[in-house]
């Protein structure tokens, strides 16, 4: 009888130990998730503050493209000043043009739209400019690249 009691107790003990293990695991997992979330939240908060304007700036870029395109035809002094002012505002927000013309094609910051026969992998024309916002690429430059066509 006593033995049987002991067996039941032992069994109960093992069960409980197993349960503790499961619960500890779950708890640790939840805690880990939470701590990760907290860390990421802090990081994202900083990033958000830094790049919150990114989406708006990105939208404005196509307007800037158009204006520059218009200017390339009209060559109007007033419009030139207006574009300059517009660019000033954007650069105050941390916008920087990616310099690509004449460089070696680099897909990290450029997208090839067209290729022609010529020197190997050289950007020979910028179709639309690429931009960085505070060092983060927000739009790759669209470029025409010369390649050696065999």
């Amino acid at each position: 009888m006593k033995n049987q009691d002991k067996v039941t107790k032992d069994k109960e003990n093992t069960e409980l130990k197993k349960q503790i293990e499961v619960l500890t695991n779950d708890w640790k997992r939840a805690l880990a998730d939470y701590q990760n979330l907290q860390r990421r939240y802090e990081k994202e908060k900083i990033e958000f503050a830094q790049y919150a304007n990114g989406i708006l700036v990105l939208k404005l870029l196509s307007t800037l493209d158009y204006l520059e395109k218009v200017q390339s035809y009209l060559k109007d002094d007033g419009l030139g000043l207006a574009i300059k002012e517009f660019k000033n505002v954007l650069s105050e927000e941390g916008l920087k043009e990616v310099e690509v013309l004449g460089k070696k094609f680099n897909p990290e910051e450029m997208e090839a739209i067209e290729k022609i026969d010529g020197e190997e992998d050289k950007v020979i024309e910028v179709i639309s400019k690429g931009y960085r916002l505070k060092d983060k690429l927000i739009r790759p430059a669209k470029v025409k690249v010369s390649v050696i066509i065999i």
Partner: protein
Amino acid sequence: MGKIIGIDLGTTNSCVAVMEGGSPKVIYSAEGRNVIPSVVDPVSHIVGDVAKRQVVVKPRSTIFSIKRLMGRKYKDESVQRDIKWLPYSIKEGRDGMAVVEVDGRTFTPQEISAMILQKIKADAESYLGGKVTQAVITVPAYFDDSQRQATKQAGEIAGLEVLRIINEPTASSLAYGLDKKNAHTIAVYDLGGGTFDISVLELGEGVYEVKATNGDTHLGGDDFDQVVLSYLAETFQKENGIDLRKDPQALQRLRDAAEKAKIELSSSKEAEINQPFITQGKDGNPLHLNMKLSRAKLEELVDDLIQKTIEPVKKCLADAKKEKKDIDEIVMVGGMTRMPKVYETVKNFFGKEPNRSVNPDEVVAVGAAIQGGVLGGEVKDVLLLDVTPLTLGIETLGSVATPLIPRNTTVPTSKSQVFSTAADNQTQVEVNVLQGERPMAADNKSLGRFVLDGIPPAPRGIPQIEVSFDIDANGILNVAAKDKATGRSQSVSIKGSTGLSKDEVEKMTKEAEVHASEDEEKKKLVEIRNLAENLVYTSEKTLKDAGDKVKPEDKKEVEEKVSAVREALKSEKAAEIEDKTKELSDVLQKVGAAMYQSSSTGQQTTADNQPPTGEQETKAEEPKAGEKVEEGEVVK
């Protein structure tokens, strides 16, 4: 403990998700996007968006659509068809398998896919801040054993232990939790970037069985874009005699514009396509593209494409030996299902609303992550946290229910707030714990009440009584009230504060909605009354404190106004009480101003000489929560 990631390794795009805190979360790429283009330059080891940007320059070394070759023999009919249009070189490798050749080196489709998986793994590791070694990867339901094996190998090459390969439609169904919804027969409609798949699944004993699949391996969003592009180009050509498709730069701008318009038309009825200076006319003058595209026109243009999906659906149903009416649930997958016309077409065909609440680009990865969670024991054993189904609060001055813990708050949780007394020399407060959404105490359910006594006599609003609510994981609510001055406290424990039956919760929530406006009025009346009573109290106190500093005629006026407010309070007319209160307040301000003027010369202002406004009492003790305390005075 490493996380198991879920990967949707797609033909056009791939996506990755992971279980976090018991729910799936999509991991964004280093480039900040929710999907990664399945494009690889195997020689320079460039993957995703970056690789996609160089396709034009390196068409023969930039590999896309590799999934089409996974686990296939070179001589397979489908491979032979794909060779015709894929720009890179496809060869016959070991055992007759299809391989790609780049710069004289051969790569198996497994190796190419592994590079995509490596990029996914790296992005996931940077997101999770730890090593990732295990994954669940999805494949189309029609993948045979060799294709599945190849996918698994790709994972292994990338350093991932592939715990399971699951079918894409199964993953989508998991993402919608259909396994728990008693849906027996499910149709998954997947219209992605380059392929269309339809599957019919049957769920039994927790296992999904794919009954039949069908589809079109070359039908997807890209075709839709192409149709729009052709329409724009042809219209432009008709008007200006110039084919924009012949000018690569104009074509690129047109392509971007067509895709943008297509996306815009999923949410608006009309899109304007504006591309100034798109090209030059024959006379050298610049030409602009300025067109409007309506949703109706777009739908007309792509109607053939959408209709093309219906035939495979019919065949799939026939193969599964099912009829439309046998389908319990329909799941929409793939970016193209965002198009209202696609959704409508599917809905009309089945005569049932398809599921589309999960982002269609992410749904497969989400399902894979859930499967990963199940395998890792995270989903099954996850502590299903309860939420409080109804708002919990206490009764405050004027029988108002003041909420402390709003409904749908995840438990365990706790919240405390400081309240004060409603009358001078009040030595006890009664805390009435309420549950429900109605603004008036009487309309909510009282869960229990208790009295905290022994509060030292003080003017109203001075004592600080902290009331705290705490719900533990078992749903037991502990409410305590503590007098901050004496430290005396009293508490009550209420079991089953979350354990209402579903019907009860529904009934109470519905009642709150039905009575919302009349309740609001009742509450407003109480607030007006409270304000009025408060002002009467302040007025009398001011007169008493000021003594003979107040001119007798002023004093008389204030007293008259006070009794007018008192009279009005006997009625239940909010407007009248409000009017009289306003009059009293005006007079009181006038008197107060006069007092200050007279005292400014003699510097008689003292600490207890309070300005005659209605809210000053609480300012002294808790400037920030001033109004809160006022509102929350505990009813005697």
